[in-house]
């Protein structure tokens, strides 16, 4: 039980940090959020394609060519 008591504050801190990050992300501007969505697409697309789902990562003019990878 003593171990659990030590663990609880640490878990609570992690959950609070996660919540704080969600709030921070929610407060970003729309274009910044779209940029993150495209980053997520790049990360997930290979997995989905390997499973047979044809997905296309957005190619946005407001991003530089280098960012499209």
């Amino acid at each position: 039980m003593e171990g659990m008591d030590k663990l609880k504050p640490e878990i609570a801190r992690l959950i609070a940090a996660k919540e704080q990050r969600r709030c921070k992300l929610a407060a970003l501007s729309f274009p910044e959020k779209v940029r993150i969505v495209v980053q997520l697409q790049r990360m997930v697309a290979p997995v989905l394609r390997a499973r047979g789902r044809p997905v296309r990562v957005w190619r946005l003019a407001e991003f530089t060519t280098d960012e499209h990878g």
Partner: protein
Amino acid sequence: MEKTLQVLTELEHDGLLVRYAIGGAMGATFYVEPVLTFDLDVFVILPQTAGGLLTLAPIYDALRARGYTEEGECVNIEGVPVQFLPAHNALLEEALAEARETSYGATATRVLRAEHLAAIAVQTGRDKDRERVRLLLGHAPLDGEYLRAVLARHNLEARWKEWTS
């Protein structure tokens, strides 16, 4: 994305659609943390046709004439697969009428209100819609009174209670 939105605005100016607003996952992303999606859901009010039919054909024709191609249920507009979803019921018509005016860069656009996104998710009723409701409840600036009125008007209170209790 900005160019995509410019094309949508041009379609509106040309009278090919009466009004558009962003919905779906990207609409939710406007209010909460970024949500993974591969298409841009755009709700549209279509012009009345002589026979009263709701058809996306004129929009698709206009986009094809501009060199944009169809990809499954979407049209790729400036690198973004856009899915046009006609407002086919009272909730969607209301959501479009009351959509929030905003801007993306220098381009004016519209996003459905968070309360309508939540109500539409409840009405649609899939697992991912339930997750969307959870996200919106957690982080979107929902106007409780407004949301309750929307849910009541469209007979969605029971499922809302079931999903959120």
